[in-house]
């Protein structure tokens, strides 16, 4: 017995010791660093041919140098920015399967485009292009690439890198059908005139021409030459690809096409149309197994930072490029000041908040009302003057939060019923009680888009009298058990409201409670986030509570166009099938001049208000955060386009000396006086 216990005990402690040892050395074992290749070793691929066309001489060139700078000259370099990720990215690729993770933005922010948008005035400013011009028919945009522009491995950015991007994005090897489609239809060609002169050809004149043509390059020297492969495509796509590549359609394919077309026309009515045949064509492709090979490779970038090392599953570190080509350019000077950005994976928000309070993270978003008003109400570091809370109103396109009715639902087809429900939703009460009164009511579906947003339209407010009036009109005249209304057919006025985020439960509970008093029962329907999104896209909901992200301009097509109604897997969650709206959306999409587009946008909003397929709920026109005192920012705090103090604009800096000082004071619990603990900036509040 004793012997047995000794052996078991020994094995137990030995295994624990091994685990501890392994865990302690894990960091050094698993950290992977980016390889450094000297510029002399880089193989230069075969350059793309120069086009036959002539560089036009009668163009009007813009350089965007007349805008104000938006950075602070007092900024100093240095320090490390510590921030958190909720999950580790599945790969470091720009495209391909599973590349669209939350971390993508952090990498894409360091890939400059040809031009950029000024965060205050929304005008174009130069980035990789020094100058640009638009052809008279507005289908070609000419760019002069900045000769200083360099990749962070030292190679210059040249015209070939843009052509390579176009070809790579069209290739099947990246396994990204959306990109294949987009780069085949939205950009027709890129012409190379010399090393630093290119022209981007668009398929048709479009609004915001330069931005549509302002591509980002892909390092040709890094990914290497393209190869030709044979690949099978459906007939029509194969022909469109051949035309896109300026290739002749071979006679055998033409023959197949003729045969197919004649069989389609000769097919009798009621018969199944014959299946479209597939043909094999030659296309250009990136290297074999591109997706697999580049999962964890770190490509050269043109931006200020690039990944320097990472521990899979735990941490990614970005390092500032000390010799960044744009560091002294007008709009880039004094920006991107910290030396390192370290993303650590912290899966739980509460844990991240605790780490922030200990100073392990430099900033923390306090956007959610319960954080701002309750959890972060009293923070010891704030009272002692180590930390600051900031509330900054911004002015940028708002993501749209709304409640959509599924118009394919037999009962929700009735507009009276929808109006009754809308009038029974006490959104203001929800904002006042659950959200501490600090989100704002959205009036339309697109707010914060400047002149595009409707200036006078007001969303329907809670109105008990009207709600009852419309419920009666819809036939729900009697009150049944539990105070819920009922119609003559015995149908109960009860609908399922589907939503994704578990922390929205209390918001909907507040709505439910008020609606119940008017005889409307809202049944809460919430589940696993991904499952909920899938159910919404498949139109399995009765009422959906959801939100859309913001774009540069209002987007109506995806959400309200009739071509998406009654079909699965798209964003028309209300299944709105209205000819007038669809027609206006089509006009809006192809209209060129801003006034027409603005007018159409207003008209669409008015028509949507009338139809009531959905109702806008609230907007959050500000950011709120806590940040440590060593994080410095310009006197104007932030631009109206900022997401937070620390974001892609990189206007902040870290005062390393102050950081040391505060950390020393933290151990002694010494109070720093005379620093405002809370800043509320309303400079950009309200309509512009």
């Amino acid at each position, binding site marked *: 017995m004793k012997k047995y216990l000794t052996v078991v005990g020994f094995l137990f402690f030995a295994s624990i010791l091994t685990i501890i040892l392994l865990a302690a050395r894990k960091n050094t074992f698993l950290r992977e660093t980016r390889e450094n290749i000297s510029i002399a070793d880089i193989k230069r691929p075969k350059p793309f041919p120069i086009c036959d066309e002539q560089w036009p001489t009668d163009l009007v060139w813009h350089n965007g140098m007349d805008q104000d700078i938006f950075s602070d000259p007092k900024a100093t370099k240095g320090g490390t920015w510590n921030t958190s990720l909720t999950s580790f990215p599945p790969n470091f690729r720009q495209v391909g399967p599973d590349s669209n993770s939350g971390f993508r933005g952090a990498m894409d922010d360091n890939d400059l485009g040809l031009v950029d948008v000024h965060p205050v005035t929304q005008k174009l400013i130069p980035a990789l292009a020094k100058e640009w011009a638009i052809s008279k028919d507005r289908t070609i945009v000419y760019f002069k690439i900045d000769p200083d522009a360099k990749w962070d491995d030292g190679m210059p950015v040249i015209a070939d890198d843009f052509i390579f991007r176009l070809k790579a994005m069209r290739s099947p090897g990246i396994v990204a059908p959306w990109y294949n489609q987009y780069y085949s239809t939205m950009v027709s060609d890129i012409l190379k005139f010399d090393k630093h002169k290119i022209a981007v050809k668009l398929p048709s004149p479009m609004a915001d021409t330069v931005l549509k043509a302002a591509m980002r390059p892909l390092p040709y020297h890094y990914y290497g030459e393209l190869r030709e492969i044979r690949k099978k495509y459906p007939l029509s796509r194969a022909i469109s690809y051949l035309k896109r590549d300026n290739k002749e359609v071979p006679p055998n394919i033409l023959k197949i096409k003729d045969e197919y077309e004649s069989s389609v026309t000769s097919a009798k009515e009621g018969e199944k149309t014959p299946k479209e045949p597939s043909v094999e064509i030659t296309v250009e492709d990136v290297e074999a197994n591109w997706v697999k090979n580049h999962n964890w490779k770190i490509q050269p970038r043109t931006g200020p930072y690039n990944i320097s090392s990472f521990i899979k599953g735990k941490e990614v570190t970005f390092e500032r490029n000390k010799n960044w080509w744009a560091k002294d350019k007008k709009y880039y000077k004094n920006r991107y000041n910290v030396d390192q950005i370290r993303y650590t994976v912290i899966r739980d928000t509460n844990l991240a908040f605790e780490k922030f309070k200990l100073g392990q993270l430099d900033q923390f978003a306090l956007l959610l009302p319960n954080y701002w*008003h*309750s959890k972060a109400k009293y923070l010891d570091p704030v009272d002692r003057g180590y930390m600051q809370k900031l509330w900054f109103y911004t002015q940028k396109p708002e993501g749209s939060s709304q409640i959509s009715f599924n118009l394919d639902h037999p009962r929700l087809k009735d507009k009276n019923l929808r109006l009754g429900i809308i009038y029974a939703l006490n959104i203001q009460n929800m904002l006042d009680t659950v959200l501490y009164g600090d989100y704002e009511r959205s009036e339309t579906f697109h707010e914060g888009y400047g002149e595009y947003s409707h200036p006078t339209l007001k969303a329907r407010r809670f109105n008990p009298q009207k709600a009852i009036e419309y419920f009666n009109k819809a036939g729900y005249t009697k009150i049944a058990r539990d105070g819920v209304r009922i119609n003559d057919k015995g149908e109960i006025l009860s609908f399922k409201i589907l939503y994704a985020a578990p922390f929205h439960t209390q918001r909907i509970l507040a709505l439910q409670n008020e609606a119940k008093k008017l005889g409307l029962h809202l049944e809460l329907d919430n*589940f*696993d986030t991904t499952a909920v999104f899938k159910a919404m896209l498949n139109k*399995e909901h009765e009422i959906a509570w959801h939100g859309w992200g913001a774009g540069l301009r209002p987007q109506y097509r995806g959400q309200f166009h009739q071509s998406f109604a009654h079909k699965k897997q798209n964003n028309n969650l209300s299944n709105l099938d209205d000819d007038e709206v669809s027609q206006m959306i089509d006009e809006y999409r192809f209209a060129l001049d801003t006034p027409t587009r603005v007018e159409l946008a207003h008209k669409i909003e008015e028509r949507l208000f009338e139809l009531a397929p959905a109702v806008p709920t609230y907007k959050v026109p500000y950011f709120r955060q806590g940040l440590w005192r060593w994080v410095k920012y310009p006197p104007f705090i932030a631009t109206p386009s900022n997401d937070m103090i620390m974001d892609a604009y990189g206007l902040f800096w870290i005062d390393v000396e102050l950081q040391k000082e505060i950390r020393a004071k933290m151990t002694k619990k010494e109070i720093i006086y005379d620093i405002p603990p809370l800043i509320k900036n309303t400079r950009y509040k309200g309509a512009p």
Partner: protein
Amino acid sequence: MNPINQQRWQRFSKNKMAMLSLKIFLALTIISLLSEVFFNDKALVVYYKGEMHFPFIQNAIPAKTFGLENESEANYLELQKTFRKKPEDGNWLMMPFIPYHYRSITKIDTEPIDLQLKKTEDFYSKQIKELQIDPNANKEKIYQLKLTRNQALGKLDSQKYHPLPPSLARKHFLGTDSTGRDILAQLSYGYRIAIAFAIILLIINYIIGIAIGCAMGYLGSWYDLLMQRVIEVLSNIPFLYIIIIIAAILRSHGFTMGFWALVGIYVSLGWMGMTWYMRTATLKEKSREYVLAARAAGASDTRIVFKHILPNVVSLLVTFAPFSISGSIIGLTSLDFLGYGLPKDYPSWGSLIKLGTDNIQAPWIITSIVCAMVLVLFLINAVGEGIRQAFDPKKISHFE
């Protein structure tokens, strides 16, 4: 009663801890079963113009009936206030012990708080202004004063929003949650659902487990082998994934995850536990001579299983029951905590724990639910332990 059972009951009742636990447990269960009487926003009795109404068991009574203007159901707390204003009418109503249902959201009257906020702010601002005018005052003092002012204002301001701390005056004995619902009412209604879930699950699991387990043990041969493999496969299915998948399938067919769906899923993946025990017990019992004797007397197989073998293994079933109940309660609670359980507007202990951990700055939420949970699980396990000892009085011992 069977003298063996009598003896068992005697042994059980001698176990003071188990007896006390059983009494408290039964009391709690009865209270929660009668939640509508104890925790309700509907009045128990309303006496209006010479007529008696019993709203808590009646259908919704429109407020018009009681002379209010609203067409929808009456708000009895407000009705009480109007009645009290006019005692000469002779109308009265009686509210339950706690006048909140689990789903009733308490509205906070912000006006007096706003008034107080303003007063406090004026009070401090005056002082600060005086100090600022005074050239001798030091900066630190002003700063300190500002901090105290902010804290005082913050304290007042937090009374304007839920969650509110426990208070006797407001009749929120355990406070409110972040939506404004009473915690105690939620605990009671949530307990009722949890215990109903556990007992229904126990019954169905036992029925299936006994039927299949006995058949496995009694019939043996290929049936036993086949069922063993089936059970092994089923018990290795990851539970959470199945729940997510089944919920997705249910939704695409127009159903939501409700109480019964959850019971169904739990049963379909949880009936295996009992079969193993039943199989072993039946295997052991079927070789006993009384089974042979019963067969010799002409009893059929089903009769032997249900009339002869089953009564002999019933002690096993009874001993397992309390632990199975506490297991089901934990299961439902953790599923709710993860957000894959009951619909979100159901009262549930799991979502209360979630609320509590999310609002750790309001410690009364998490304290209440954790205490309730620990208490109930302790009671059930104490009863279970008592039963086990009563059925099997052997002392733990081992050979040298």
